[in-house]
């Protein structure tokens, strides 16, 4: 875990007992986690009133950065404490930070995990058999074909249209074979 000079400076300020009393520290820590996990939070706790707002905002930014970075690295309690120790945190505050972090770790992981993108998830598949007797060009064309519908997972508001396609039997076999291959190679990847 590495933090920028600015964030480290903020943490160092936060560690000073003269600037932040134990209660103010706890309040700021709560606010930092709250602002990450449940939207913007105001720094208007009564324990924080007597602190210079600029410093308060600065330390708040540093604390949130530290939390996010720790979540990004999936840091354990020991790693975080050693890092905070470098920023001159005393033991009590370190423990406070770590317990708060552990409490919110799952939410934090979900929050960070939801940053990104991935292809659509297929939730279901349905198929029909089609039999083509003749076409405009061919008088006799007895060919079966599959009409496939892949149901795609739809997020609540804007639903994704399902995927429709038709394919011959060989193509379908090919698709199934490829899917099996993919599943198998995933299996293989786990056996390292």
């Amino acid at each position, binding site marked *: 875990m590495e933090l920028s000079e600015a964030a480290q400076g903020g943490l160092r300020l936060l560690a000073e007992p003269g600037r932040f009393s134990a209660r103010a520290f706890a309040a700021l820590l709560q606010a930092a986690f709250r602002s990450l996990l449940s939207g913007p939070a105001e720094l208007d706790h009564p324990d924080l009133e007597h602190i210079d707002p600029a410093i308060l905002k600065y330390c708040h930014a540093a604390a949130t950065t530290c939390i996010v970075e720790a979540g990004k690295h999936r840091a354990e309690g020991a790693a975080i404490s050693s890092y905070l120790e470098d920023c001159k945190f005393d033991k009590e505050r370190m423990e406070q930070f770590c317990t708060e972090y552990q409490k919110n770790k799952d939410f934090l*992981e*979900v929050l960070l995990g939801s*940053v990104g993108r*991935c292809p659509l998830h297929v939730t279901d598949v349905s198929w029909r058999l089609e039999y083509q007797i003749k076409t405009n060009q061919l008088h006799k064309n007895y060919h079966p074909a599959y009409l496939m519908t892949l149901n795609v*997972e739809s997020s609540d508001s804007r639903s994704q249209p399902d995927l429709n396609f038709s394919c011959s039997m060989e193509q379908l076999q090919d698709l199934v074979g490829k899917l099996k291959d993919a599943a198998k190679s995933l299996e293989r*990847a786990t056996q390292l």
Partner: protein
Amino acid sequence: MEEVDKILIRSLRLSGTDIPDEVQSVREFTTELIVEAVVRCLQVINPSVGAGLSHILPPGMSARFRIGISLAQACQDLGYQGEVGYQTFLYSSEPEIRRLLLFLVEKLPRDASEDAAQPVGKSTALHRAIATTIKEQLAVPWVPPTCRTPRLQLLQGSCLLKQFQARPLVLPRESDPSIGKMPPERKEFFVQFLPPVSAQLSRPACFAPSLLEQNMADLCTDQDWENEWKNQGLGSRMTPEEYRQWKHQRLQHRLLDQLRQAAPQAGPAPQGGTARDLTQFLGTFGAGQERMGALDKGSRFTHTQHLAFKQEAEPTAQIHTLPVSRTSEEELQERQAAEVEILESELGRLVGQIEEIEGQLATLGLTLTQVEGEVRQRQLGVTELEQTLRVKGRTVELLPDAENNMAKLQVVVESSAQRIIQLAAQWEKHRVPLIQEFRELKALHDSKELESSQRLLEIRELHERIRSAADEAKRKDDLYKQLLLELESLPKDVSRSAYTQRILEIVSNICKQKEEITKILSDTKELQKEINGLTGKLDRTFAVTDELIFKDAKRDEAVRKAYKYLAALHESCSQLIQTIEDTGTILREIRDLEEQIESETSKKTLNNLEKILNDYRALKQENTALLGRARET
């Protein structure tokens, strides 16, 4: 043997043989188990050899023989010295199997254990982490979308995913080395108006990405600066602030030059104007946000700057009105749009005015400079004329008494010449010590420079060492963590210390036994020596006695008899000795035979014979069946 078997079974399990828990020693190995163990070992030792072998014993007798033969061949190819054939596997005897399995286990590659001692590379660690994560995720059952917890939703769905969108955040930093001391306006802005980082963004979803990006960008800048400072900054012998300023100026100059070169067509008068604007424009580069209010003059550059700035300023204004009036969003937007329009029209008007006034200013300035030049020239002419007037006036005054005045002038000239010489001497007097001092100071400066460059070198070395030490520490830390993890994941049943203890005990036992053996050997040697001595003595005594008695035997009858008795005695004694020796050898043979019997009984010969008979019958049956089938076809 028990411990050996335990170790053997553990190694076989590691090599992939599925040995049931109740099997505790090699004695309990069934034929199937033996074949499986050997095949697995062969597969691990030499995959190409092992690939052709199946670890499951086929039901047909002939196939079993074939497998036995191929296994024996493979073992011999590996370099097994002992006797090995199909019977070793099919009709096993405990010691033989144990020897063979020990040989195979010895041959097993030790890469796995050696790898553990070596630090695993980053990529392997990553691969392992990926593998474990995939395994975990595969183990989670699929859950319909409506029943998912947020964590499951992340794993199995894509609804919650949001793109990585980062926006710049403003950190209320106390002081920044790249900006310098914070002006009071900025401070005021931080204290009163700047919302906390979490409220600076219009969409809360971008908050975490923005934080990550900000941190990463800051980190990169810090590292860049560090590198630059170590490589070039230290050499320049300036303080970091000075170095920054110097760099800033140099960059400005260079940009200015480039821009000037790029626009050579512009006329001379506007060029001056552009240059001036450029400096302003460039000045805003370093501390853009700071000089918000400083841009009151208008030109093309400053206007664009002005506009860009306006756009930047608006969101912040919007942000701090947001919490105050929580009106609906649309209303707000409408109002904002109206406001923006008004502001833009006003801006356009102002810009027009400014341009007009600037045009006027430029023409006026031009005329002013022209007029000033003229005035200066005229003034110069006036002073010149005044000078000549004065000289001519003096000459006219001096003309009436020319002789005297000439002499006086001569005197004045001479005295002034002398004064010049005096002054020169005085100057010389002052100059010499000053030069001396200057030289000393210069030497001092040189030595200091040398010293400082040495120091500089030392500092650089120190930096290098610090970096390498930090790297080393980090590497070791990583290694430590990884080894700790591996230690946790290692099976706990291997008590290494117990094994070493046993080995030590065994070694000490062997030492003791060796001592005893040597003692016994020396005893036997002594005995042998004694026996040899005694037989020699006996022979010699016998010879002497024989000779003595033989001499007298010719004369005396009694002595002859005695001689006969002596011969008989000697004969019987030697016979006795012979018998004792024979008994010894027979005893030894008996012991050997007993041992042989024991080993034969341990080979389960009877069992094996029965098995062989059964197999023989099965083989015969198979053969007849095959023959029958051949005939049928």
